[in-house]
């Protein structure tokens, strides 16, 4: 029952690109050009569904740079499988759309 919006699919595609990599919210905002108010609800929904696992950044990483610890998100094994399936469905729909006749040339 996950609400699969276009923005959610964008987030999933970035995460699936490198499933072992951990991303933080702001990073996804910048990569996708989506607002913070869009990204965090998506991340929390995915986390609730068990597709993502979030954790605090390792102290050794951020202490050097003197900034507070970030919250990092990573695909779970199940999440990666589900995300893959859902994106495959999207790709099929896009193929249908591309092969559909256009209005141009119709009398």
């Amino acid at each position: 029952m996950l609400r699969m919006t276009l923005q959610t699919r964008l987030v999933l595609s970035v995460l699936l690109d490198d499933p072992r990599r951990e991303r933080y919210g702001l990073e996804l905002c910048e990569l996708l050009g989506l607002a913070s108010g869009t990204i965090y609800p998506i991340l929390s929904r995915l986390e609730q569904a068990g597709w993502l696992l979030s954790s605090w950044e390792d102290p050794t990483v951020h202490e050097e740079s003197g900034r507070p610890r970030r919250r990092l998100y990573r695909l779970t094994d199940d999440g990666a499988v589900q995300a893959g399936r859902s994106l495959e469905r999207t790709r099929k729909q896009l193929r249908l759309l591309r092969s559909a006749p256009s209005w141009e040339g119709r009398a």
Partner: protein
Amino acid sequence: MTDNLLAPVLAAATAAWDTDDVRRIAHACRVAERLHRGQLRRSGDPEISHLVEVATIVAGQGASADIVCAALLHDVLEDTQYTIEELRDEFGPAVAGPVQALTRLTEAEVPTADREVLLLKLADRLHNMRTIAFVAPDTQRTKSTETLRTLVPLARRLGLTGVGEELTELANRTLHGERRTLSSAVVRGSAVLLPRSVRARWLAEWAAELATLPTRRATARFAAGLVIGMPRLAWILRSSPTSRRSTARLGRRLASTVVGGVWVAATVDSTLALAAAAAIAGCIALAAAVLFTTSDEPARRLRELIESWRNQR
């Protein structure tokens, strides 16, 4: 007076103490209060309040009565004229031992010390970190760094995850204090919509991101986005099964406020006031229905209904 002081300790206790245990703890509290009378913490509070807080923390971790007594008396050897012999005579070796070990504990000995002594040390540090605002900034930084480096891993090793997490949060907050900007203020304000249990986590997450944004415009854009998305995030978080209880509590509080408001408007005996109250009640009811929906069932059933109606045509 001791009874008032001890109330939080007894309330927090998770171990089973008998009346003899409670009597000994009360005695330790009286002795500690007498010995430290007149001594003040940096915050201006009397020293005994710190000792009671430490005792509350260890009690909450399932400590025995002996360790709670040791918590109440953990500074007597260092800060008063009380001697180790007097301590041993009055309270026995089970209390005197940990107090002495804690007083003598050096950095090097920490990994090999007794679990009970380490619990006392962590509890002492936890309360100090909670009240760290009252010491000099340099000391704050040193203590926080030391906490993260040595004591948090220690807490984790002993299985005291709650203590470890709070120490981490406090130390990080001290080291990277939030700049009080308008952006962080509006985010914090709108975050009251979120369930209380997760509010701190999200605020900490966003504070970390806000701290890295280079320009004021980027900060403002990020904060504005969060504020706009807050109702949606609140709805998502509140429809999870774990937050239903707090959401129900909030719903009840809202309902009683509405009822109270309408009642006041009715007694004021003005049709305008009543109409306004009814309108406000209607808006709140609508918002509540949206915010506190706990399942997709109604929406799904509605969709199925529409599908079947469409198929019939």
